[in-house]
């Protein structure tokens, strides 16, 4: 028998309550880690964007197109070596809940994105097929698609059913880069536009490759100045800034996620502290007996703190371990909605610090109560 035996025995005393407390703490820490990871990933979406690519979109908003006629002038802009463009398609696969990004890109798009890794064979097959599609590996896995398969997307912006043949699969060349999109040829979208709207010649946004990232702000300024008084004024920004602006569409999501995370932690702190206080109150008689036997206030405190630490440690193992398993090992990414979700060491440390705080606060109340406990009174109470 050691002091650990006593701690273990006390934890087993009300086993159901101990298990429920550990579960509650585990779920709270899991939620906290998930929210922080989600938030951290959103905040770092910009890092995935490149400083050497400029995105030129309509100043009125990304949903408004730009004329294809801008292409030649953009290509002539000093410091720009490549011009590509893309348009949001917004197709639905079978059910609106099966959301994934799908957009049309021109032939030069892939050369601007070395992060999109495709085998030569798939690239050639994709380029050769007018209705061909290039699909991220995660999206392929999600729907169990195979190369060569023809799929139908229901148009939302462009009504009707549109067929695509999967010609290639791409993988991300760096962590955090999306692997859940479907890309197809812009010339195919042009055909659809021509058939449905009687015209073509519009694109969603331009992607420009710039030779010197340091000069990107000046180039962006020059482009925007060029089109300032046109029918379609532009907003040019680095891809990084563009991504951050896109994340900003969620509103002050960071504030809400932080607030929810803190509320969850605070709630479980109260629950855990109350449980420990109840547990200690039930054992005042026994604490008095321990003190009669010669246990000092410090020795009793260490026993109470050890119990709290074990509960918090188990909760941390459950919550943080669960999140690590889900995001870092199983690489769960909310169906491709937020690629690159991974618990960072910083978030893990924060969760550990919170677990430690919960253990300290939970132990503080019973420790204070047992230190104030007068053995003589407590023994009389027991008797």
């Amino acid at each position, binding site marked *: *028998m*050691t*002091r650990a*035996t*006593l701690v273990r*025995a*006390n934890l*087993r*005393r009300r086993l159901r309550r101990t298990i429920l407390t550990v579960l509650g703490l585990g779920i709270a820490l899991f939620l906290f880690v998930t929210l922080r990871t989600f938030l951290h990933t959103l905040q770092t979406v910009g890092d995935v964007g490149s400083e050497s690519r400029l995105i030129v979109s309509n100043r009125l908003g990304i949903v408004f197109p730009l004329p294809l006629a801008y292409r030649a002038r953009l290509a002539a802009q000093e410091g720009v070596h490549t011009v590509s463009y893309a348009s949001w398609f917004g197709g639905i696969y079978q059910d609106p809940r099966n959301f994934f990004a799908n957009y049309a890109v021109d032939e030069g798009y892939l050369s601007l994105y070395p992060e999109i890794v495709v085998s030569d064979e798939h690239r050639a097959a994709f380029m050769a097929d007018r209705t061909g599609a290039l699909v991220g590996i995660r999206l392929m896995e999600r729907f169990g698609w195979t190369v060569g398969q023809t799929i139908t997307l229901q148009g939302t912006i462009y009504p009707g059913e549109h067929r695509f043949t999967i010609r290639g699969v791409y993988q991300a060349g760096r962590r955090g880069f999306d692997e859940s999109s479907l890309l197809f040829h812009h010339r195919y979208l042009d055909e659809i536009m021509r058939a449905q709207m009687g015209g073509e010649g519009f694109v969603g946004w331009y992607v420009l490759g710039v030779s010197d990232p340091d000069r990107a702000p000046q180039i962006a300024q020059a482009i925007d100045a060029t089109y300032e008084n046109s029918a379609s004024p532009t907003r040019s920004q680095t891809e990084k800034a563009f991504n951050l602006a896109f994340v900003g569409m969620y509103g002050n999501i960071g504030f809400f996620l932080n607030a929810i995370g803190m509320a969850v932690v605070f709630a479980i702190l109260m629950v855990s502290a109350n449980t420990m206080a109840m547990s200690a109150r039930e054992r005042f*008689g*026994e604490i008095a*007996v*321990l*003190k*009669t*036997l*010669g*246990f*000092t*206030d*410090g*020795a009793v405190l260490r026993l109470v703190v050890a119990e709290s630490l074990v509960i918090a440690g188990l909760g941390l193992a459950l919550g943080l371990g669960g999140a690590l398993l889900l995001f870092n090992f199983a690489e769960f990414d909310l169906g491709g909605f937020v690629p690159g979700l991974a618990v960072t060491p910083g978030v893990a440390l924060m969760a550990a610090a919170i677990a430690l705080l919960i253990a300290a606060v939970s132990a503080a109340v019973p420790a204070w109560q047992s230190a104030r406990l007068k*053995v*003589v009174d407590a*023994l009389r109470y*027991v*008797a």
Partner: protein
Amino acid sequence: MALVEVQGVSKVYRRDTVAVPVLENLDLTIEQGEFLALMGPSGSGKTTLLNLLAGLDTPSSGSIRVAGEEISQMKPRQLAAWRARHVGFIFQLYNLIPVLTALQNVELPLLLTPLKKKERREHAETALRIVGLEERMHHYPRQLSGGQEQRVGIARAIVTDPTLILADEPTGDLDSRSAEEILELLERLNREFHKTIVMVTHDPHAAERAGRTLHLEKGALLEARSVARPAPAGGSAQ
């Protein structure tokens, strides 16, 4: 040789603004190896005196020396360490830890000693053997009878080989047969192991087993009976 020397001890409790004197200018000497019974009506201060001797409470005035150490001036932390070394306490309601086995309950006070794990276990087994419970050492308190629980309580009190054993109505919650067994055990600890025992009791029959009986009446001690024993006994109540 005097083991316990109580001189001019008073204890006053405060209930709000009212001072309630429980013990008044009390003197008592307990000899090494003595078995002393403390009797008296409820509220006479028996348990208060026992708590003072155990270092669980401090006197309002006066001096208490046990084995040459003045305990009335000790700080709580010093008193705790002193209790662990010198006092074995037997409770009326046994006060065993319900989630520990008999063996673990007996080992509990040994956690405060420098003994190794194996030594602690051996000591606890020996104590349980002395009280005749070696067959039940792995039973939990709920699996034992009242008499057996009290025997575990006694084993816990003697396992550290304390200077002084203090028993607060050790037979108060037992049937007559179990009470008799416990008294025989205490008598044996006194006779065979020369343990100094102070027992608070309401039961005159239990008090008869002690070498000396003192009555507490309104905070003052009266000697009621003294029996000469082969083992060192005696002392005086003034």
